[in-house]
């Protein structure tokens, strides 16, 4: 089994690039973005999309698994899409990333306690318990989810689903203060 690396903020994602793409919230925009990746021969590793607080815009968080040179090209090509308003490449070290996982794991009497204990350690939630299976939900950094998933595999995952990551830039110290102040006032 792989060693647990939850404490390593870089995890195994050093090859990944996270693009946060702000788009106009219009029909077909996701097809334009994903079509462009396909057309230029790049793979999307994961993708999450939802409207922002302003319903006119959506944010697409795309994780791509490519080296820096084609990344620059894909960013430029993406920006040519009329509906794309802004693209930010998020450095994993300078951003907060979260992902959600749902998993149903096979249980028998003697292992149920172990799984619940594991869920507690990882701050996962127990969603439902059946006679031979348990459903869990966990949100966290993708690396932490990897670790949890790896441990659950030992018990037999019946079904699992991950959302793909969402990310935002980390607040700088100064901004953080400002943000807090803003919230207080």
């Amino acid at each position, binding site marked *: 089994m792989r060693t647990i690396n939850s404490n390593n903020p870089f995890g195994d994602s050093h090859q990944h690039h996270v693009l946060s793409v702000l788009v106009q919230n219009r029909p077909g925009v996701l097809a334009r973005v994903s079509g462009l990746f396909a057309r230029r021969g790049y793979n999307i590793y994961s993708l999450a999309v939802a409207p922002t607080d302003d319903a006119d815009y959506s944010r697409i968080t795309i994780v791509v698994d490519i080296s820096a040179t084609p990344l620059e090209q894909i960013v430029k090509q993406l920006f040519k*899409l009329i509906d794309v308003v802004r693209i930010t490449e998020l450095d994993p070290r300078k951003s907060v990333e979260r992902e959600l996982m749902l998993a149903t794991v096979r249980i028998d009497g003697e292992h149920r306690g172990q799984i619940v204990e594991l869920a507690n350690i990882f701050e996962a939630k127990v969603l439902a318990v059946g006679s031979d299976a348990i459903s869990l939900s966990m949100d966290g950094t993708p690396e932490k989810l990897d670790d949890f998933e790896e441990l659950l595999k030992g018990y037999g995952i019946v079904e699992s689903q991950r959302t793909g990551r969402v990310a935002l830039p980390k607040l700088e110290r100064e901004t953080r203060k400002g943000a807090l102040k803003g919230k207080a006032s």
Partner: protein
Amino acid sequence: MSNKETLTGAEALIRSLEMENVEIMFGLPGGCILPAYDPLLKSSIRHILVRHEQGAGHMAQGYAHVTGRPGVAMVTSGPAATNMVTPLCDAFMDSIPMICITGQVPTTAIGTDAFQECDTVGITRSVTKHNELIMHPDDIPMAVRQAFHIATTGRPGPVLLDVPKDVLQNTMTWTWPTDEEVIASLPGYKPTTKGHPKMIKEAAKLILAAEKPLLYIGGGVLKARAADVVRELAELLQIPVVTTLMARGAFPDSHPLCLGMPGMHGNATAITAMQKSDLLINFGARFDDRVTGKVSTFAPDAKVIHVDIDPAEQGKVRKPDVPIVGDCRIVVEEILKSVQELLAEGSTQVNIDPWRSKVSGWREKFPVAYDQSEPGGRLKPQFCLEKLRDAAPEGTIVVSGVGQHQMWTSLFWKFNEPYTWVNSGGLGTMGFSVPAAIGAKAARPDRTVWAIDGDGCFQMTAQELVTASTEGIHIKVAILNNTYLGMVRQWQEMFYGERYSEVNLAGCPDFVKWAEAMGCVGIRVDSVEEIDGAIELANSINDRSVVIDFRVEEFEKVFPMVPAGASNDEVLLHPSQESQREFLR
């Protein structure tokens, strides 16, 4: 307008096109677009009825090529829309401003596999700069304004508007959005036009310091209408110029600094000048694979200044030393000004005389060459072209298809004026010539328009000669007829051990009869003696289109040639020049 006016979507569409100053559009009606054809009856817009939707698309392209204004095509849904995919892709590859309007099944039927339904915006998404399905008649004026804005600014390109039938039939309250409203509606679209001042200065310094500078100009120079400033810069510093396939005419072939076309079938001087240059000054070209040959050995000692309005072209193929994103005209003007300032401040240009004399030497030794035919032998296509060229009135617009005849035309014609050369460069669309020539002639009825075509290309779209005849748009067509898919035949001869597979078009129809059947004058030329008379006759006819069928040598090949994937240094010269190759080292 004080009183709010109620229009149908169809009326709003046609009025919007009128408001965008559309004078001519090309199209063919059908079920879902029917409502839009009704208000067209009383519109100021001239509609040219084609015989196949692909023809409408290429005509719109030809119109746009020679005017710089967007060409407009309107067709129905389903098969009409799919027939439009090739022209859209062609326009996208060559950055041609174009507006395409397609009918769509009613909004209530979308997604039901209705008659003549297809996912037009889905199919055309990757071959348009932008496309839009209009779901409400109120949205029509803004969608049209956005389409014209997007098609004509930044890097130009095709925009498609897909309009369901009920959106055309239902009513709306007429409003015409202001420029500000259009721009505000496109928060993600802000093309950069002005170059970065620091980069401009850096470019100017590099240009003055280069020992072997070369201007490498592409279609962007024509799109930005920058030919005159480019010439001013070239003349000021006496820098030689290569003009890519898309830029033929952007710098006069008659000019002593003009080296002509580089690339796979470029001339030896232009190719070698790129290879030996120490500074490529790229204005609006994109390091296309047909120009660079094997990229890793392309212009190995050259620094690169790359001016392009599309940021994605910077570093896509070749990493520039000085990337400048901006409109070619604005940026070249700024570079010129910066050069003039540096010179006024006492900077001097490095002496480039040795470079220019080296280039002149190549030019003398390696003119574009072909073997004249033996007495009584078959016509040489190059000879026919030279004859056509020499008899053509000044300002003649030349439109080619794709293949050997295209390369020969680019090599042997003398283009001395911008916007006189129309061809399918990026996509390489066979059959482009006849319809594009009709579009060009519709735009410029004052000019002679020669379509130079191959027999393979001609058979793809020549039914549009009917359109030419019925609409009174009189073009002239020269078919360099070698009864082969000539370029493919050349590759099979050279790279597939003369194993000819499915390239012989012998048994092709009688093109003279074909021309006559379509209301044109048809002339066949079999021998050298007939050439002059035929061309003279063709040039004298102005009330009908003319087709000359030049029955040319079957096995003629295009030289020079850089084989696919090979380095430009390995250019194959005309056999008569191979012995001199060492002079290119």
